[in-house]
């Protein structure tokens, strides 16, 4: 499988897989923070599902990357500092309120679902197979979070205000999902990974009318277009917590 890729494409794919996996593991961490603290018992169960799904997806992407690079998923997660992470800033922001959480999840789920729709046709078979598997869950995520976004945006005055605040905060960050890395052009040309600017158009064509129909106003803010190597100070704080147990032992230690 990997033999079909030249060294340059292989590196580009490994980088992209790291970006996919890091997004999911950090978002999964933020979702997991709600477990036991959700607005109602049924949502404790639902949000724990989202967190498990995202972390499960991260594991799949890390494993595909391991096939290319030999890097162990746990070592990648637990023994890397913030500067080596390649997630977007949107997922590392603190969990906020339920409006912020559902909106962030929605913006991410639309991106992920549209991405997976394209990835199932990837010329790189392992990627296409993994995408098909993950996509089933993402169809559910999209249904769950769009249901929530619509209800909170059109619920009460307070919930609407909280949703608008959340959108004002998140909207500029969402643009970073579509910032191409150095190898992404070559991946798109080889049909391995979709073109990110086309993906962004599809994303906007989905989220804009949906949010507007939910009576939310899309903010006119400067989009975040920095690369994925740039982080907020929230990431090292998050990693400090996430890695605290694993780092008392060597990466070889079994847990």
């Amino acid at each position, binding site marked *: 499988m990997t033999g079909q890729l030249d060294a340059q494409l292989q590196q580009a794919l490994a980088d992209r897989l790291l970006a996919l996996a890091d997004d999911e593991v950090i978002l999964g961490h933020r979702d997991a923070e709600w477990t036991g603290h959700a607005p109602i018992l*049924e949502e404790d*169960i*639902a949000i724990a*599902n989202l967190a*498990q799904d995202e972390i499960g997806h991260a594991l799949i992407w890390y*494993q595909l990357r391991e096939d290319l690079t030999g890097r162990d998923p746990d070592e990648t997660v637990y023994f890397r500092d913030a500067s080596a992470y390649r997630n977007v800033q949107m997922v590392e922001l603190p969990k906020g309120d339920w409006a912020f959480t559902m909106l962030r999840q929605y913006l991410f789920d639309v991106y992920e679902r549209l991405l997976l729709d394209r990835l199932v046709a990837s010329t790189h078979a392992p990627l296409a197979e993994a995408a098909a598997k993950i996509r089933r869950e993402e169809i*559910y995520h999209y249904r*769950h979070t769009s*249901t929530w976004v619509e209800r909170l945006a059109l619920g009460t005055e307070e919930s609407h205000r909280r949703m608008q605040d959340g959108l004002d905060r998140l909207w500029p960050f969402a643009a970073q999902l579509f910032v191409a890395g150095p190898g992404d052009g070559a991946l798109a040309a080889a049909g391995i990974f979709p073109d990110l600017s086309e993906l962004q158009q599809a994303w906007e064509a989905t989220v804009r009318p949906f949010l507007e129909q939910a009576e939310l106003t899309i903010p006119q803010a400067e989009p975040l277009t920095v690369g994925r190597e740039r982080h907020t100070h929230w990431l090292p704080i998050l990693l400090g917590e996430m890695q605290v147990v694993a780092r008392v032992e060597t990466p070889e230690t*079994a847990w």
Partner: protein
Amino acid sequence: MPDTEWPRYEVFKQDRPNRPHEAVGTVHAPDPEMALLNARDVFVRRPACHSLWVAPQDQVLTMTALEMELNPAWAEETVPEDAPVRTFHVFTRQHQRRTMVAATHVGQIQARTHREALRKALEQGEFTDRPVYLWMIVPADAITGSREEDVESLFRPAEEKHYRDQSYYSGRVFDKKALKRREREVA
């Protein structure tokens, strides 16, 4: 504003095609769509499920045989002449075994009210081949159900969450490399 835990919905789960729906419990939800999603998260954390129905709890008539016996007036009601005939799903409990379901779908009945449906079920004898301890009468038009095309996204993913299943834990202890090999096998 008074606090709320949201209304309750009865949940009926069908494990496999061609198996009856079974009453598994309730979820709290603000509306039917969220009730369906909540039912999925609460009752389908593990396989298997092929279909879920949810119905507002206050639109489901639940009655026991003993309750009917001690209060024969249960059957009395005035049904308006022009009340429309509706379809009611009938669920019964006909055993005393230890199970995790309250009642099982046995069929449907055309009637104008819940109580009329139950009266007809008793008169016709179609569902009373064995003693019935518990009845649930659910109007078809109160049910929100998952669709055939939801099976992949709502129910199949639980099949891959092996770590939720006790059989995943073999009792053996693995070092990191052995564990990694095993994880890939399981996946």
